[in-house]
């Protein structure tokens, strides 16, 4: 690990340089600033191959420029017929052999890295999380701990966490650029990958496989907290009482509405496995509503009133009785106070 960290510093400098050149990417989203093992392995490979490619492009450009400078038609030489050369064995050998060598330089680390990132020999003794992609949200179930949650994936730092990806409908792809490359969630089989975050933080995740109209709105977060905080989060989540009475009157009414309007038919609170809609156990701690919207009461009310407008094609729209604005506001109050744990995105240093 230490060796990697040393290299990581150097890489960090290099990628910062790249970022300056490219006009910056968003921290916690860009693949240029790796904050996790997978992203670092990929970036190493990207840099090696980029270096080779820049060399190739330079060679081509040098010859190209010389050609353009030296051999354009000159005044007074319009009728000059150049020598009709057939070829040149030596040259041809050179430009066959050198690319082969260059490719070997890329191929070896490629194969190593590919096997490295697919290594699941230690999966048994680690945290395993089942990840399910749905149109258009993500579900996470920590099978050892019987914790169910959606949209925000809590993980401990400096630990390999194994994800078993599957889809409940069409193909999705799980991508948290700053932590790791992507892996598809297929409907008929499970894929395993691991992620490991170096530092605490809230990292943006995106769906990377076209999955319908709201494909671009299927964002999620990976919230990396220290292992101690993670333990506490797990405890808190395990001890959730789904029936707990909210404190304010409005929220209490909201809770009733939530149950009467059959919201609970699709959503779940507590550790029962989610069915059609996201698990809302820690909704109050979320960073975003529906993955992409601002997390405030107004937005939630708007969402409840007209989800299709905010996230076209989602499966909530039209599947519950029409709500008045007042009802929506009460439900929002109820949802916002669902904060079972002290470990929140803030613990990881929000966004």
């Amino acid at each position, binding site marked *: 690990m230490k060796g990697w960290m040393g290299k990581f510093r150097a890489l960090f400098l290099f990628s910062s340089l790249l970022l300056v050149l490219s006009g910056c990417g968003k921290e916690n989203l860009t693949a240029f600033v790796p904050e996790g093992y997978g992203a670092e392995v990929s970036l190493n490979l990207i840099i090696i191959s980029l270096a080779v490619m820049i060399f*190739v492009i330079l060679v081509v450009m040098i010859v190209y420029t010389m050609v353009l400078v030296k051999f354009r038609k000159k005044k007074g030489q319009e009728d000059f017929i150049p*020598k009709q*050369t057939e070829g040149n064995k030596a040259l041809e050998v050179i430009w066959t052999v050198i690319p082969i060598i260059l490719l070997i330089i890329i191929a070896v680390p490629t194969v190593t890295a590919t096997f490295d990132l697919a290594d699941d020999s230690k999966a048994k003794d680690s945290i395993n999380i089942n990840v399910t992609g749905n149109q258009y949200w993500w579900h996470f179930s920590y099978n050892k701990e019987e914790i169910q949650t959606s949209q925000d994936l809590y993980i401990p730092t400096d630990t390999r966490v194994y994800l078993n990806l599957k889809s409940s409908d069409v193909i999705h792809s799980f991508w948290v650029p700053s932590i790791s490359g992507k892996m598809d969630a297929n409907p008929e089989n499970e894929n395993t990958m691991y992620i490991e975050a170096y530092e605490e933080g809230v990292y943006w995740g995106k769906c990377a496989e076209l999955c319908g109209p709201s494909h671009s709105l299927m964002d999620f977060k990976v919230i990396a907290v220290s292992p101690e905080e993670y333990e506490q989060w797990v405890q808190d989540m395990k001890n959730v009482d789904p029936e707990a009475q909210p404190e304010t009157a409005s929220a209490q009414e909201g809770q009733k509405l939530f149950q009467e309007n059959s919201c609970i038919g699709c959503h779940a609170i507590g550790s029962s496995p989610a069915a059609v809609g996201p698990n809302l156990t820690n909704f109050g701690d979320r960073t975003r509503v529906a993955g992409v919207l601002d997390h405030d009461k107004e937005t939630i009310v708007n969402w409840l009133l007209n989800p299709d407008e905010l996230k076209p094609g989602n499966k909530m729209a039209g599947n519950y009785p029409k709500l008045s604005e007042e009802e929506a506001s009460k439900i929002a109050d109820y949802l916002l106070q669902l904060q079972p744990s002290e470990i929140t995105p803030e613990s990881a240093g929000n966004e």
Partner: protein
Amino acid sequence: MSTAVTHKKGFGAFLWDYITTVDHKKIAHLYLIAGGLFFLIGGLEAMLIRIQLIKPANDFVSAGFYNEILTMHGTTMIFLAAMPIIFGLMNAVVPLQIGARDVAFPFLNSLGFWLFLFGGLLLNASWFLGGAPDAGWTAYAPLSTTSPGHGVDFYILGLQISGAGTLMGGINFLVTIINMRAPGMTYMRMPLFTWTIFVTSVLILFAFPALTVGLFLLMFDRMFGSGFFDPTMGGNSVIWEHLFWIFGHPEVYILILPVFGVFSEVMSTFAKKRLFGYTAMVFATVLIGFLGFMVWAHHMFTVGLGPAANSIFAVATMAIAVPTGIKIFNWLLTLWGGNITVNSAMLWSLGFLPTFTIGGTTGVMLAAAAADYQYHDSYFVVAHFHYVIVGGVVFGIFAALHYWWPKMFGKILNEKLGKLTFWLFFIGFHLTFFIQHFLGLMGMPRRYWVFLPDQGLDTGNLISTIGAFFMAAGTIVFLINVISTSVKKQEVAGDPWDGRTLEWSIPSPPEHYNFKQLPLVRGLDPLWVEKTEGRKEMTPAEPLGDIHMPNNSILPFVMSLGFFIAGFGFIYQVDDLSWLTAVFVGMGIALGAMFVRSVKDDLGYHIHKEDLEKGAK
């Protein structure tokens, strides 16, 4: 474009002439016009994409509509613009380059065109009939099998019909190149364009059947309740991915190889040198075609095939850089020591070299599987393939059009406008797509209807959109050039560029029988060989004699129309079984036309020697 003779005949006769034609030169015109129109439509869709992405969280188009646009942009550009235009070029040029009077199967040639056109029309009819396909040009199941409405059905039938046309074209050109070469035209004397078309046709022959099957399975799943890709019935969507890419990867070489041929011709002509390393170029072409069939899973690195499969396909993919590199360096060395004329055709070729090198090298970066976990389905990939497709295929098409325009239409495109087109397009192109490499790695996935504010993606997207407007401007200048050239009165000699290959040895545009007497080929660059020996024309290989020509026929048009009608029937019978009538009527028309074709002898006719002599000045 139209010769004086056709004008006299009146417009109806002119149209009839084109609808029934089996002359490869006219079919070339048809392909170019139809492909060109589809290019404009695809370009318009690209502009809509870029306008939508001009700023974060834009709502210029709706989410569902965006998916339709992006699907149709990809599908239209690949199947209905780039490929048909390439078919147009090969129809216009290959028979002339090998010294043939015609293609092997003139009837099939015409059928191929009409199938493509009707397939394309069917696909685009979806816009007006409840929505276009919206599952991406790759139509991954189960998104495609569950997509509501009829969009994907139009995709399936449109591509099935036009794909059949393409397959015919492929077989036709294979046989043409093998059987119809002029005396003396050995394989190793064939111009490189002809060689690349030969290899391309082989790729078509072996790649398209996989697509055909894939489309059938998709059709069965969507329309007839089968379960190939339905996990609840035990189906598996990965099968579609394999079938699509077994076709899809060779497809990208089907697009690029012909333009490699074009650049070889253009560069050697305007550098006034023979192609450097001809043998190596042929060898590299064949090798690219061969390797092209073993790498398709590089589009599937993140599917979960496992590290062993990923590594094998990664290394196989990288291997393609070697033959492609051979080509790049051979072109550079062709130019080296030459006497280079820089006109429009040459500008596009010179623009191609660095652009394609960048696109190819990013391809090799993509091939590094563990790195592709980051690139995949991000704008990095979008940047890669536009660098090779636009920077390769579209540049190549422009180069070819400027180069062969006089041969096809007897007029030279305006040089000033040509250069303006190039610079607008070239600058716009790099503005649009270079920045997308970074956008991808900065976390912007592809096929995103909106990107969010505050994610550092705004500037890049804005620049990209501005660039697209430059490309549009360039395209419009080109259109102006085409129109103003075609209304101008102008006469061009047979050989305006001091050409090297056979097509330049006959008048522009050529007579409908191409060669009065088949030429005797005495080396590579046959016309150049004659020129170096002080002759201006080819030596004939045969005495003047009767020329056998095929008859025109309306049947290809009728057959394709039949399939077109049946296509609608298939699409709508899901809703209402009475649409099966359309299936029966359509198939009846098509099969009827086939029946007529097979029982009616079609022996063609002869142009008599005396008439040929009369024509001679």
